[in-house]
């Protein structure tokens, strides 16, 4: 499993900044080559009919795009492939894949079993070890082929890096249009790669800051659809919207608990915002903070025991951590600058945040004890990070320069692979879904 070790090492080196000698005993030269994306060959999936081959071309295209976008892989140009396998169950001629310098080969086949069902078989081969890494079979309805492609990309990512993928996911965000002083903001959802964008609200009222439920097809967000702006729940399957709780004031900055059973948010009373926790089933609510300062942007640790939030109780916006009952409060940011919008990594090891310093905005990460701060991005405005479900990638809102419209961008935790995410028009406030079941 040389390939897997090489990729893991590449990720670790990015993440920790360790120098090469630490791994010298593993006989893998990580000072060269392995920090380069791993080259893969992904021919179009085969089929015994033209409709099957058409789906096969599309599936291979989506897998190539997913893996390329991760920054960890380079998909070799299909025009360079020498062998054209007719039967993916037979061992490929490895020498012909080594010639084009592929480390691994993905081979797949599409079978339309009937008008309601497509089956996809795939095999991943290690070209240098000349071994079969794994094979999979998946079935779905014909129009659902993109999800099969994403699931295959996730399987490859997991097999080669040892970590779960993030391709079969969706992103909820705010689609923006119109002039700056009369902006239309709609709740929207799309696949992680920008496909299938759909508006969920009409644009006649402003919506902000959506967040995905970690366990259900549900979104929580701030809506100005009623006289008092309030936190709402949106059921993606039914389209039903409901205001969350009968609070005596404006509620905002909602986020789900890791078990999906509670929502934490800010409530404004007499101009003062405090953090409240609400049980979705019993609708019982508890106030967790009690200070005349701004207390907002709460985010749970993945084990549900702690909450990181934004407060200006020390004179400027900084990050604080408390236990889920409000006890053991302590400040974790002491660096120069104004810190806000914290989000706890799903892996638990890091907190991502927005930092405003010397006229620029940054996305950064630090450990929950406040140590190990790293700045990942810099722009006129970068804000509101959200984690991929595997904790390896962040999406955020960026305005590249003054007056440029906002767009969703992504960056790896390593600080590499900065990309603009495909959205229909201007976009902001992305929130990543968990892996779809």
């Amino acid at each position, binding site marked *: 499993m040389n390939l897997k070790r090489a990729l893991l090492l590449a990720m670790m080196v990015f993440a920790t900044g360790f120098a090469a000698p630490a791994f010298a005993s593993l006989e893998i030269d990580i000072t060269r080559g392995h920090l380069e994306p791993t080259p893969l060959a992904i021919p179009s999936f085969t089929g015994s009919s033209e409709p099957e081959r058409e789906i096969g071309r599309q599936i291979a295209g989506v897998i190539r795009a997913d893996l390329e976008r991760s920054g960890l892989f380079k998909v070799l140009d299909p025009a360079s492939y020498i062998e054209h396998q007719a039967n993916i169950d037979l061992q490929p001629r490895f020498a012909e894949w080594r010639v084009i310098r592929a480390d691994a080969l993905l081979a797949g086949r599409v079978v339309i079993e009937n008008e309601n069902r497509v089956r996809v078989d795939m095999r991943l081969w290690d070209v240098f070890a000349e071994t079969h890494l794994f094979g999979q079979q998946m079935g779905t309805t014909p129009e659902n082929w993109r999800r099969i492609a994403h699931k295959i990309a996730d399987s490859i990512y997991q097999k080669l890096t040892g970590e779960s993928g993030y391709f079969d996911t969706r992103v909820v965000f705010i689609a923006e249009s*119109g*002039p*700056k*002083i*009369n*902006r239309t*903001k709609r709740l929207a959802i799309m696949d992680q790669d920008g496909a299938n964008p759909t508006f969920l609200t009409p644009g006649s009222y*402003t919506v*902000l*800051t959506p967040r995905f439920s970690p366990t259900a097809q549900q979104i929580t967000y*701030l809506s100005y659809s009623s*006289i*008092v*702006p309030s936190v709402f729940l949106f059921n993606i399957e039914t389209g039903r919207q409901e205001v969350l709780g009968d609070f005596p004031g*404006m509620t*905002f*900055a909602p986020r789900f608990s890791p078990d999906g059973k509670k929502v934490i948010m*800010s409530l*404004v009373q*007499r*101009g*003062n*915002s405090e953090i409240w926790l609400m049980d979705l089933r019993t609708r019982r609510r508890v106030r967790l903070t009690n200070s005349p300062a*701004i*207390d*907002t*942007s709460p985010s749970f640790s993945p084990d549900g025991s702690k909450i990181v939030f*934004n407060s*200006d109780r020390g004179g*400027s*916006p900084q990050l604080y951590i408390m236990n889920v009952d409000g006890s053991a409060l302590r400040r974790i940011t002491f660096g120069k600058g104004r810190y*806000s*919008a914290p989000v706890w990594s799903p892996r638990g090891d890091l907190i991502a945040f*927005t930092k*405003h310093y010397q006229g620029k905005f940054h996305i950064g990460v630090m450990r929950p004890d406040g140590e190990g701060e790293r700045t990942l991005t810099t722009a*006129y*405005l970068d*804000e*509101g990070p959200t984690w991929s479900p595997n904790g390896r990638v962040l999406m955020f809102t960026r305005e590249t320069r*003054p*007056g440029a419209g906002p767009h969703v961008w992504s960056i790896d935790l390593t600080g590499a692979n900065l990309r603009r995410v495909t959205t229909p028009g201007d976009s902001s*406030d992305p929130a990543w879904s968990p892996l779809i079941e």
Partner: protein
Amino acid sequence: MKIKLLKSLGFAAVFVVSACASDPQVTQTSTPGPTQQQPSSRPVTPVQTTQTYAPRPGSIEEFSTSAGDRIYFGYDSYTLSAQARATLSKQAAWMNSYPRVRVLLAGNCDERGTREYNLALGARRANSVKDYLVNLGVDPSRMTTISYGKERPIDPRSMGEAWSINRNTHTAIVSGASS
């Protein structure tokens, strides 16, 4: 001071437009639609209007011209400047003269902050205006507050002058004014 002056002129103009529909003394042809807004890179030039008539007593127009419907804040601040307090005194006097008037106090922020923090800051700005008006005798039941955070800029430019204009609390009359 200059900014302040320009803005009050600008807002007088806006309210002339909105009041003109039912006012036969003014001839005004069209209201600029949202698609005609200037691109954000160009500065907004205040429209100079000469008033040739007196606003009707108790009207929204009179409120905005005689008292001013917006007060401004410093960066990340919700404390009221002397100028803001002077404007609010006039707002309170006017509201005390027209006790049927109800208002919405909307707190706004500039774009140099993150979204949720600005929602909290806007709530503070709206509330500090409400508290001040209550102290000047305005019944709190006549006032509701809302925060728009950085979502409702009135100056689209990305520069200091625009940011200081966009840090405000807007007193919007929602009912009880004469038309």
